[in-house]
């Protein structure tokens, strides 16, 4: 398949007419379209997608509602029609595919999909193809189920990382998509169709046997099991439908909750802040009350320094007076002793007689003592007063509360500071949450949990029905054998039909297993080659594939490289795409939208050098940050067959300009 031209009229930002011509030369098979973010790159991918399949994707693979695809400016100016057209070549024929969306009569401005009528027209070599055959025709060369591998949105690269997560839902879905590429559906469908025919044959066998004497009872049991199996199968269909609904519902809720996760977490923070505010306010109230009590007592602390100084001075004075007192007592004692000595002529201490010569000395000593005593100024009442004052002071000093008050003041300052901080946080959170319905979020979480439980229950029910169907199959086979006691019975048409269908069914089931194994090896081999061509790590051996088509990098010793950068993930994903391109669908173009976001310069160059070889046409939608002008383009220069730039006229109007 080879694309020739894409024409758009009033599609998304492309007001009026816009045309993209695809390169036709195989040696120059690369087209690059440059455009900044939000200008219309993804809209080009959507134009192709919408033309082929009738839908367009927004972020996170959500379908964009039909009425939102019409260019707003054009509608405001009275336009009523949107159209996209792809001219291409496939299997030796020329195709012209047009999809037209027209506003219905009486609709002034489309507000819902129902306001628009969509028509599709396809010509093959000039001859119109009937409407009901167009989808089948498209699926011959651009099967919708595998379109994600050739209409490739770079934002979805991280999906492929899911393949490494065992049992992840996304991984299982992608695995299914990959198996479609590899032709597994031909065998899977074959198995299912053969089974349908087998069931009919089994019914026929049952009917035939019921008419044969001796086999009526067996035939009846056989028929009962056939009926049971049908009932289980009907149940299974219903349960799977319910399970899909539940899963979709849960995924939608998960998406919504992811969006509002931030709100939920902010609400929790807000509740926590408010609670903390209340706690702090209570603490402040308690501390303030404590402070007030202390303030009533703190006057004593004001006096204390001077009172302590006074007390110290009184102690010194007391000591001095007591020293004087002691001195006086000593002198008085000596005076008395001297007097006694003089009076009694005998020393009162040792009892010796007073000698004549020593009398005069003693009298002089007495006189000196008398003079000393006179010189001593001992104020006994003062000493008493001081003692009383010291005692009174000791009752007053030491009852201050100053230090405690200081601690309480510091605590209050800290609490006030904390309170201000928390109040500011609370105010900010409240502003951020204006308009958010946090109760609704809580209810959504509850609903999600309910749906999740329901999903688990339905999964169990599905497994149960599968087991019952398997059991029914076994019983039916056994009874079928019992209805063939001899050749004449074996030759009955129904029985023979059953025999053929059972063998065919077994062949298809076994074939699916074989194909999966072979596909894995082929994809691994091609993906490895692509990886080695694109990676800058020349020592790496290549890639290894797991049964979910997840790829791991093998280093030079064949060991798994566990820690991969974002850039490495992108290359692994691109290698998988390249591997699938070689192992899968018929040769055709690959359209890639912003695939290079996380890559460094070296990897960009390697990839740009390799990719043109991996498809019949390579169409790249990039912004300037992904491919840097002449630097990267030099690698591609010899393969470039055309360049365009998307220019913005207004936020709702872009144009394509050929460079």
């Amino acid at each position, binding site marked *: 398949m080879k694309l020739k031209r894409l024409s758009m009229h009033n599609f998304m930002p492309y007001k009026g007419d816009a045309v993209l011509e695809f390169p036709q030369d195989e040696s120059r098979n690369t087209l690059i379209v440059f455009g900044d973010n939000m200008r219309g790159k993804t809209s080009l991918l959507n134009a192709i997608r919408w033309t082929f399949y009738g839908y367009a994707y927004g972020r996170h693979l959500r379908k964009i509602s039909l009425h939102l695809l019409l260019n707003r400016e054009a509608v405001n100016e009275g336009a009523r029609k949107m159209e996209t057209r792809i001219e291409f070549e496939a299997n030796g024929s020329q195709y012209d595919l047009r999809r037209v969306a027209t506003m219905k009569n009486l609709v002034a401005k489309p507000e819902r999909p129902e306001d628009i009528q969509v028509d599709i027209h396809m010509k093959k070599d000039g001859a119109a193809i009937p409407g009901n055959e167009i989808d089948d025709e498209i699926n011959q060369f651009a099967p919708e189920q595998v379109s994600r591998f050739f209409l490739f949105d770079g934002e979805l690269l991280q999906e492929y990382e899911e393949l490494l997560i065992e049992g992840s839902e996304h991984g299982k879905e992608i695995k299914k998509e990959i198996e479609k590429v590899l032709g597994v559906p031909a065998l899977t469908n074959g198995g299912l169709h053969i089974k349908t025919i087998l069931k009919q044959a089994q019914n026929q066998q049952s009917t035939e046997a019921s008419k044969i004497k001796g086999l009526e009872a067996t035939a009846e049991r056989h028929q009962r099991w056939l009926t049971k199996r049908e009932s289980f199968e009907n149940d299974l269909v219903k349960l799977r439908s319910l399970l899909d609904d539940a899963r979709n519902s849960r995924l939608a809720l998960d998406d919504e909750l992811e969006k509002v996760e931030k709100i939920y977490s902010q609400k929790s923070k807000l509740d926590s802040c408010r609670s903390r505010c209340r706690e702090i306010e209570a603490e402040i109230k308690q501390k303030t009350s404590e402070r*007030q*009590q202390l*303030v*009533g007592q*703190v*006057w*004593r*602390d*004001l*006096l*204390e*320094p*001077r*009172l*302590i*100084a*006074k007390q110290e001075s009184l102690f010194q004075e007391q000591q001095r007076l007591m020293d004087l007192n002691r001195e006086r007592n000593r002198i008085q004692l000596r005076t008395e002793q001297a007097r006694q000595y003089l009076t009694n002529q005998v020393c009162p201490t040792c009892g010796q007689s007073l000698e004549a010569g020593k009398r005069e000395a003693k009298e002089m000593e007495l006189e000196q003592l008398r003079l000393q005593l006179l010189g001593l100024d001992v104020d006994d009442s003062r000493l008493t007063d001081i003692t*009383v*004052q010291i005692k*009174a*002071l000791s*009752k*007053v000093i030491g009852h201050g509360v*100053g230090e405690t*008050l*200081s601690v309480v*003041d510091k605590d209050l300052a800290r609490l006030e500071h904390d309170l201000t901080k928390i109040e500011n946080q609370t105010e900010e959170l409240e502003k951020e949450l204006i308009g958010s319905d946090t109760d609704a979020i809580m209810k959504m979480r509850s609903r999600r949990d309910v749906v999740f439980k329901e999903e688990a229950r339905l999964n169990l029910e599905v497994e149960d029905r599968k087991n019952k169907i398997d059991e029914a199959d076994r019983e039916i086979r056994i009874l079928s054998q019992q209805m063939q006691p001899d050749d004449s019975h074996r030759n009955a048409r129904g029985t023979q039909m059953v025999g053929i269908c059972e063998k065919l069914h077994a062949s298809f089931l076994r074939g699916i297993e074989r194909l999966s194994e072979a596909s894995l090896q082929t994809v691994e081999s091609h993906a490895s080659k692509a990886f080695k061509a694109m990676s800058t790590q020349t020592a790496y051996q290549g890639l290894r594939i797991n049964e979910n088509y997840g790829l791991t990098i093998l280093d030079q010793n064949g060991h798994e490289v566990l820690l991969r950068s974002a850039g490495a993930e992108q290359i692994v994903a691109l290698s998988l795409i390249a591997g699938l391109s070689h192992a899968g669908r018929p040769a055709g173009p690959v359209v890639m939208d912003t695939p290079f976001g996380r890559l460094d310069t070296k990897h960009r160059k390697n990839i740009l050098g390799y990719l043109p070889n991996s498809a019949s046409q390579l169409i790249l939608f990039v912004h300037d940050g992904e491919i840097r002008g002449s630097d990267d383009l030099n690698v591609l220069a010899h393969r470039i067959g055309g360049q365009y730039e998307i220019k913005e006229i207004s936020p709702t109007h872009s144009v394509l300009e050929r460079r």
Partner: protein
Amino acid sequence: MSMYTSEDLNKFSLSERVHAKLKRLQEEEHFPEMRDAYRFGIALGLSRGIVPPEIGSPKSAGIYSISQIDPDQSIALAINLLMDTENLPPYRWAERLAEWGIEELSRESEKGQIDFSKLLAEAKENAKDI
């Protein structure tokens, strides 16, 4: 030993002007009760060794009894020990100190919440100098 003499006053009072300031100190919740502010005013004056002037006129009627302000006579003791009251009885001295002290507190309160830590620190410093 009682500090109270018969020449001393029976009730503490203030000038009407300062009495109004005392009320405001309590209303603005600087002190839990007005008598707490009254006591603090006396103590503030004592800590700074102020020689207080006579109370201005007009005077309000007696506001507090002695026992309401100085039940354990520690204020009287402090005045007798720390001040030369020029023979003025201690509670008359205290009354004048209160008049001065409350004016001072009123000035402090104009800056916002009274910083008791600062006043206590100043009292410590003053004690070294006096």
